[in-house]
């Protein structure tokens, strides 16, 4: 699609190198509401399914990483072990805002790279119920006497007085800043992103919502934070996803039919916010994504134009648009033209969020970064059913959590 800092010629995967890391098994639950199950049920269900998918058992795992944001600090990993198998292996409970799931994957990846594990299980799960908007909340109890508190000496919550802290608003501002800098980007371009993702979700049986909307319906739905309308925002929901990773060395000894379905992790990158002037007052979702993408492309020896599909973090429509540019999928500044041209639609040149994305597939926070790796894996295996991108060989999964953390994984189809 465009230039990259590290455009390298594609080398087809010919063999399994010993120090490579692969996805052996993958699963995600249907995203939605699970009122009769707890987060451990969701995590257990998807972990067992991912193990089954890889034709291995919990007793084969050398490490476990578990991610959840809302239940951080409750030892989800160990609670999961108690339900599916207590084998004594190291457990890492991790959080990184909306990049929590990707961080769980990375932790298992590190353990394998470090030579401490041949196989490991990464699980992300969240139970959000109907918590409403992700937003800064005011204290319910009114203070009777103003007293400066915290790092800004604030006498009350600042949300709404000094700009917004609500997520639809924060990401709206990120999009509007891009619009400010680049002509041809406006409300309609943002709305088209949501149009595309709702349309894509109709093919995904695991998506929380599977209803297509017209561009007009999207633009006319209630404004949350201009330009993000309700249909341009991800819903809250419950869900979980899991992947089993394996070292190349160990994969070599697996049966042919298991090897055939393994997917190579050509790059696994995690970044945080580098200092930028403006990020001191508003989250900068772009710079760390650009840094992660550059490192991922360089590591994988893959250029954006090599990507057969991308799952990126469209928590809000405004976010997806700027990530076209951040991930180098379009010309610099050309995200408006990119969506207008139809490129990120499933029949376009670089299909983006064919799962329906966070906007329609859903966004159970801890699960998201694992679920997008599941999605890419499923396409590279040619097992994505009605939503399959035909002949997909290389895909990229991107996730970003405010605070900030960005995870990028580049995955490649095995040729073994």
């Amino acid at each position, binding site marked *: 699609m465009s230039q990259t800092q590290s455009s390298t010629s594609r080398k087809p995967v010919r063999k399994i190198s010993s120090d490579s890391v692969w996805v052996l098994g993958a699963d995600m639950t249907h995203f939605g509401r699970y009122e009769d199950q707890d987060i451990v049920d969701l995590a257990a269900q998807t972990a067992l399914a991912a193990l089954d998918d890889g034709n291995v058992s919990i007793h084969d795992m050398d490490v476990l990483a578990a991610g959840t944001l809302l239940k951080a600090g409750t030892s989800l990993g160990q609670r999961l072990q108690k339900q599916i198998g207590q084998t004594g292996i190291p457990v890492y409970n991790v959080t990184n805002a909306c990049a929590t799931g990707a961080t769980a994957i990375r932790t298992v990846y590190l353990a394998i790279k470090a030579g401490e594990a041949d196989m490991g299980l990464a699980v992300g799960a969240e139970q959000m119920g109907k918590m409403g908007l992700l937003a800064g909340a005011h204290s319910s109890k009114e203070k009777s*006497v*103003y007293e400066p508190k915290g790092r*800004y000496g604030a006498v009350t919550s600042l949300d709404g*007085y000094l*700009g917004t802290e609500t997520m639809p608003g924060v990401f709206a*501002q990120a999009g509007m*800043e891009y619009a*400010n800098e680049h002509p041809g980007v406006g409300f309609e371009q943002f709305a088209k992103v949501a149009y595309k993702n709702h349309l894509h979700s109709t093919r995904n049986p695991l998506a929380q919502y599977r209803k297509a909307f017209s561009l007009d319906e999207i633009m006319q739905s209630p404004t*949350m934070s201009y330009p993000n309308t309700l249909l341009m925002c991800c819903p809250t929901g419950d869900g979980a996803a899991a992947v089993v990773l394996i070292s190349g060395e160990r994969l070599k000894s697996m049966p042919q039919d298991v090897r055939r379905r393994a997917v190579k992790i050509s790059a696994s990158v995690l970044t945080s916010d580098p200092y930028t002037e403006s990020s001191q007052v508003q989250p900068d979702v772009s710079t760390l994504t650009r840094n992660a993408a550059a490192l991922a492309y360089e590591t994988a020896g893959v250029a954006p134009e090599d990507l057969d599909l991308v799952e990126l973090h469209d928590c809000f429509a405004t976010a997806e648009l700027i990530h076209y540019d951040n991930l180098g999928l379009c010309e610099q500044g050309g995200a408006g033209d990119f969506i207008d041209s139809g490129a990120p639609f499933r029949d376009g040149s670089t299909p983006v969020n064919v799962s329906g994305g966070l906007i329609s597939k859903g966004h159970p926070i801890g699960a998201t970064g694992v679920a997008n790796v599941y999605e890419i894996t499923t396409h590279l295996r040619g097992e994505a059913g009605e939503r399959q991108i035909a002949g997909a060989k290389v895909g990229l999964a991107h996730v970003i959590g405010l605070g900030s953390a960005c995870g990028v994984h580049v995955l490649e189809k095995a040729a073994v």
Partner: protein
Amino acid sequence: MQIDPTPQIPLVDYLRLDKQPHLVANECTNCGARFFDRRNACAQCGLRQFTKVPIRNEAKLKSFTIVHRAAPGIPAPFVSAVVETKDGTTVRANVVNCDPNPDVVRLGMPLQLTTYCIGADDDGTEAVAFGYQPS
């Protein structure tokens, strides 16, 4: 007999309610990075010395959103914004005294800092916030 003026307190400690209200930042003496919060060290260079610097009141609109679904107790819709002051500092605030309408709020529009009362506590002390209005 003299009437005491209503006591006031700034919403945040980086708002100075002088005759000419303005913002002050902590500026790193090494690299010049500016911060509005209490600091342990500099996010850019890592060094640990700061001086207080006043921030210019003139600004332009760098980005905005019109918030319709706001936190409880916050009148909506309102214009949330990121502005760049004349001396190049980024500030997050509301745009006030301006119709919350995307056809009226223009990216790049010139703005000026202003202050307004957001309420009073049980002792009668008023909290004073700042915002930026079209200039």
